[in-house]
């Protein structure tokens, strides 16, 4: 059984975290630390880079290299880091808002360039840090602090977007599915090129409250029931699909990454 090894990646002395009770960020942090431990990643060759947001504070509790830049730009910063330090394993852990609103362009271009980064998006369907406004990933019609009568904009599927743009690896899971989450973060860490792990996560303080999902337990149960394996999902009829979301591995390929591209052109 894995031991306490994961704690070498966690700044235990800085806990408790600033997060609300039940928030998914801590669960993701633990899964990440466990994945690091199982892969025995050297902390000095491991970088956790974060966006700005509640999820962005994950880096306040780690012991490896840590970068925390400006809202939405993490992938652009890390593109620079990776070009000069290709040996670093870089994990960019971003919020849904950070990644898909202000950071949309960098997200698409990092995937297109296939930069060797594991991008973990903590998708709590809203801007937790600023008080629960909708994000581009919030489903249509949901209630948030800036959509009191329902979000009037369609969402977009960032997994499909990453796939289209050129990512090597794309996986979606939820905070409920902890074991799967840890395992696929590990799988992503083993890949070269751009990987996306989207983790749908509860925000009990805003999202669950505004949408009357109930407490954190109810929201986790909702994740458990609504997110079904992609294979199952694909066999559903369209009408049925509307009630579910898929989770699982969308993409797994081995296209050359940015570093390889740039070196190739040197002949």
């Amino acid at each position, binding site marked *: 059984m894995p031991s306490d090894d994961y704690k070498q990646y966690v*700044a235990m002395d*800085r806990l408790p975290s600033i997060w609300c009770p039940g928030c998914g960020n801590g669960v993701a942090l633990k899964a990440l630390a466990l994945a690091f431990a199982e892969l025995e990643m050297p*902390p*000095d*060759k491991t*970088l956790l880079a974060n966006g700005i947001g509640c999820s962005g*504070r994950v*880096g*306040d509790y780690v*012991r*490896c*290299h*840590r*970068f*925390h*830049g*400006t809202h939405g*730009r993490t992938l*652009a*910063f*890390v*593109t*620079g*880091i*990776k*070009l*000069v*330090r290709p*040996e*670093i394993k870089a994990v960019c852990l971003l919020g849904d808002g950070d990644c898909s609103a202000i950071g949309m*362009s*960098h997200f698409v*271009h990092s995937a297109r360039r296939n930069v060797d980064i594991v991008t973990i998006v903590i998708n709590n369907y809203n801007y937790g840090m600023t008080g629960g406004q909708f994000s581009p990933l919030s489903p249509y019609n949901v209630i948030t602090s800036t959509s009191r009568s329902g979000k009037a904009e369609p969402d977009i599927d960032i997994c499909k977007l990453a796939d289209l743009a050129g990512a090597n690896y794309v996986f979606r899971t939820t905070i409920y599915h902890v074991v799967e989450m840890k395992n696929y973060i590990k799988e992503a860490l083993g890949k070269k090129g751009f990987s996306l792990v989207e983790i749908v996560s509860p925000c009990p303080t805003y999202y669950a409250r505004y949408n009357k999902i109930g407490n954190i337990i109810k929201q986790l149960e909702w994740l458990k029931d609504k997110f079904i394996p992609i294979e199952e999902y694909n066999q559903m009829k369209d009408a049925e699909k509307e009630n579910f979301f898929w989770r699982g591995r969308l993409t797994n390929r081995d296209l050359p990454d940015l570093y390889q591209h*740039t070196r190739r*052109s*040197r002949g």
Partner: protein
Amino acid sequence: MTIKKLLTGNDACTYAAINAGARFFAGYPITPATEIVELCSELMPVYNGNFIQMEDEIASIAAVIGASLGGAKAFTATSGPGLALMSENIGFAAMAEVPCVIINVQRYGPSTGIATKFSQSDVMAVRWGSPGDHSLIVLAPSSVQDSYDLTVEAFNLSERFRTPVILLSDAALAHVREKVEIREPGELNLYQREKPSGPVNGYLPYGTLHNNVPVMSNFGDEHILRVTGLVHQESGYSSDNSQIAEELVQRLARKIDNYQEELPAPFFYGRQAADLIVVSFGISARASLEAVNTVNSEGFKAGMLELRTIWPFPRKKVKELCSGAKKILVVEANHGQVREQLISCGFPPEKLRGVNKQNAEVITPSEVLLALKEENS
């Protein structure tokens, strides 16, 4: 080895950067800085460095900051509209104390303005583009040689002070071709950023200060680095403590403002105790100097002060050198942005005549001459 070459200002900046040790360039094309982007795309691979054309200027300065934190000397080049976009991340670099160089080739603005034409109207924007209190360094070359020399200096200062340094060039200087003495790396005094040497355990990225500047590790090195744009403790972990905030923000100013003697001093030409002094910078200083030489050869007693460090504004030096003047002419192709700084030095506005031009053309020697003669009559 020192070699002589005919180069444009933009090319000189690029070779200087390479020779100063820059091995990373990220940028987004923009007139009149584009040639720097293009030349870097050719040279960086040759020098085993990295060139990347990012999706915009925000991403460009971000990649530069990232590369710098990875240990590379890194830079970008842009012009007005791109500079504006970079301002948030320039503020970040100031806060997180990341060395980096931004070459800002001024063009005619505001907004898209006239992309191919000349202006010196970014003097304030380079200093104040990013919100919050912090200091930063801005240098302005006046010739192609100076573009080379001050670019080298920009890298040195940015490593020494761990701060963004902006080189304030312009559309005219960028494209004029002049002789440059290229001192190659062996000839140059290059400042290498200080690296932590103590034990790896318990290392605090912002914990050891030399001259108020932290001795920081790089990402991927064995001393674990933590960087954030939030107010942070010595550990690099975030904090919202009032005292930590005040100490940090005041140090960001102090670490530069208290060491101004290390920054390129203004050049003074002509009569030291002159009644009439021309203050200028950049290519306008060349027109000014020609005019001053002309009047002096006709028996005037005029002096000429060429600013090389624009920010922090070299108040002490300027006061010292200009205090005797009865009249000071401030020659600049903008609304009078440097003239304002002289007022801030305590020179009374009546003493300060602005020789300004805002029509997208360079200020010529005869225009300065005219102003000088008016003042003397």
